[in-house]
């Protein structure tokens, strides 16, 4: 009788059509504890995270949440602040970033002519509506134009476009961006900055202090007004500063400030990276690439405007002066540099490149491997402290596989 019932159930089971939901199960080594893990993806979300049976040999790759870069100026020749930006360009850059393990990013527009900023934000806003890549762009970063006009502090930002904070003007930019500006870099010491910061925070925009020469008091006022971040600490700063009174110490000492750092191996020394990491801790540090549009292109000579630039495999230089012109490493590279420079765990390195930005910008579905989160994942190996991306999943779909 029992046998008959079992047969019956078996036949019934054969008759029920297999559900059309595709489940993909990825086998790898968890970035959290370096133990084997099975991660199942269904309908674009993570549906299960399990320990595999002891005897199954898994592939030798790490698995982690996709990386999130909140400061990137362009990629594969597409310049988000440039005159030639198109929706197609943004799509191309996004897909190229997926190959580098970056599944989410904030295209960053720097200090430029106001009309250019508006035009480019409108293009970015259009690109966000693209069903294929739109989810990879939850917001934009406006770096400037309300920053220090002083040489050194203004960095590569053009002085003629640097302005005093103006709430009405910012609202116009925000309107062009269809409310996509989620992060703005501002100098706290310039005229009108503090009330401007307060208004930005009230409107839901995260304010980061950068390209500034703010005093400890001015930085504290900005924090009181709701500023939460410091932009690429140690860069966007003059070469010679007062040893006691400079913009770096107060940002290091204040736990209310999360700092972003360009740990590409060139923009900060190993000692700076180690010191910043020790002072801020893993919770208060995030990695950004600050990459120029040349990033992702083959090394060589390129012309930008009237300048001749040289792209090495790691960084962009001005050939005449032989000085740094900008970064060219996606944050997957910075993860490797953090491991190398600080000896931190992989868990901490990924936290700084994914979990922390997700938390800071309220990207609730991202930054962790957990049931119910969006299935944005990377599979990678680490070879000589370099992250090598093997596969990238966005929204549960395989979008990149290394040949």
């Amino acid at each position: 009788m029992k046998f008959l019932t079992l047969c019956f159930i078996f036949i019934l089971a054969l008759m029920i059509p297999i559900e059309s939901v595709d489940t993909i199960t990825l086998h790898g080594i968890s970035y959290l504890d370096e133990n084997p893990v099975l991660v199942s993806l269904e309908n674009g979300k993570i549906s299960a995270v399990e320990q595999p049976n002891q005897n199954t040999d898994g592939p030798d790759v790490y698995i982690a949440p996709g990386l999130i870069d909140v400061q990137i100026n362009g990629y594969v020749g597409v310049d988000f602040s440039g005159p030639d930006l198109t929706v197609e360009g943004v799509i191309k850059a996004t897909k190229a970033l997926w190959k580098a393990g970056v599944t989410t990013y904030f295209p960053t527009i720097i200090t430029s002519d106001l009309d250019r900023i508006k035009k480019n934000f409108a293009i970015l806003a259009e690109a966000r509506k693209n069903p294929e890549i739109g989810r990879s762009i939850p917001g934009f970063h406006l770096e400037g134009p309300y920053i220090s006009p002083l040489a050194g502090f203004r960095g590569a930002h053009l002085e003629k476009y640097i302005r005093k904070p103006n709430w009405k003007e910012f609202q116009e930019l925000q309107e062009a961006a269809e409310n996509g500006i989620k992060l703005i870099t501002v100098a706290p010491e310039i005229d009108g900055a503090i009330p401007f910061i307060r208004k930005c925070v009230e409107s839901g925009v995260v304010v980061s202090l950068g390209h500034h020469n703010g005093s400890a008091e001015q930085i504290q006022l900005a924090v009181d007004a709701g500023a939460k971040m410091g932009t690429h600490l140690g860069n966007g700063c003059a070469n010679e500063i007062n040893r006691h009174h400079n913009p770096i110490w107060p940002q290091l000492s204040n736990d209310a400030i999360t700092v972003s750092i360009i740990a590409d191996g060139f923009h900060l020394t190993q000692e700076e990276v180690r010191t910043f990491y020790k002072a801020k801790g893993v919770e208060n540090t995030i990695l950004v690439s600050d990459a120029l549009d040349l990033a992702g292109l083959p090394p060589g000579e390129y012309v930008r405007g009237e300048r001749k630039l040289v792209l090495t495999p790691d960084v962009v230089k001005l050939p005449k002066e032989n000085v740094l012109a900008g970064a060219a490493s996606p944050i997957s590279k910075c993860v490797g540099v953090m491991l190398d420079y600080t000896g931190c765990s992989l868990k901490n390195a990924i936290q700084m490149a994914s979990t922390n930005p997700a938390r800071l910008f309220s990207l609730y579905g991202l930054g962790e491997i957990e049931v119910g989160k969006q299935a944005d994942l990377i599979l990678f190996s680490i070879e000589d402290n370099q992250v090598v991306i093997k596969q990238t999943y966005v929204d549960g779909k395989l979008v990149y596989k290394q040949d």
Partner: protein
Amino acid sequence: MTKSFTIDQLQAAVYGDPNEMGEAAADFVKSKLNGAIQQKGEANLILATGASQFSFLKALQRKAIDWKKITVFHLDEYKGISDQHPASFRKYLKERILDSVAPKKIYFLNGDAPDLEKEMDNYSKALQQHPIDVACIGIGENGHIAFNDPPVADFNDPKWVKLVSLDEDCRNQQLGEGWFPTLDDVPKQALTLTIPAIMGCKTISCVVPDERKAEAVYNTLNEEISTKCPATVLRTHPNTSLFLDTNSASKIAD
């Protein structure tokens, strides 16, 4: 503060208006969270929703609290509504506090999860792994805490999280607060933390403003401790503060 008093173990205080009350409750919660952070480096918090929490949540996000060290849970969520629904408690919390404070970790109770049993099981496990330092709650017009309405409230509930049917009074309150266009739109079921799950929290901060709640407040303080008015159970908790305004306290004798 206009007055304060203690009934059984419950400490209550009455404030002039909802803003004063919200400030006082926020200061209380801040000191408990910061105390926990000092002691063990992190804190676990439960937040409540509803119109009664507006002034408190507004005040709380302005307090000096290191949110990067705080893990947040919430009390309840309707069954079957998405986090985009205007009445969703997840949406409420994101917009009214979480987006701006960016806590270390948030556990959302997904009332629209495909497998609710699994969702409740996961939430229960997460709660067990994070002993709660402060639970912020309110009291409903029918005397409920979370969605433990009188018919379903159980002081000895073996579960941590359960699926409950909402009683008529409770659903009418949700309609009255304007979260839904008609009574038919108010879901008939919800997921809720149980009473033992709430009573197991180290500290409870209970915020109850408004005339609408005067009857429930009176019952909480004066009725015998029973599930007829679930909030009466708070009088047996060793570390609970009840924050009232003059309107919600209007039925209490001087």
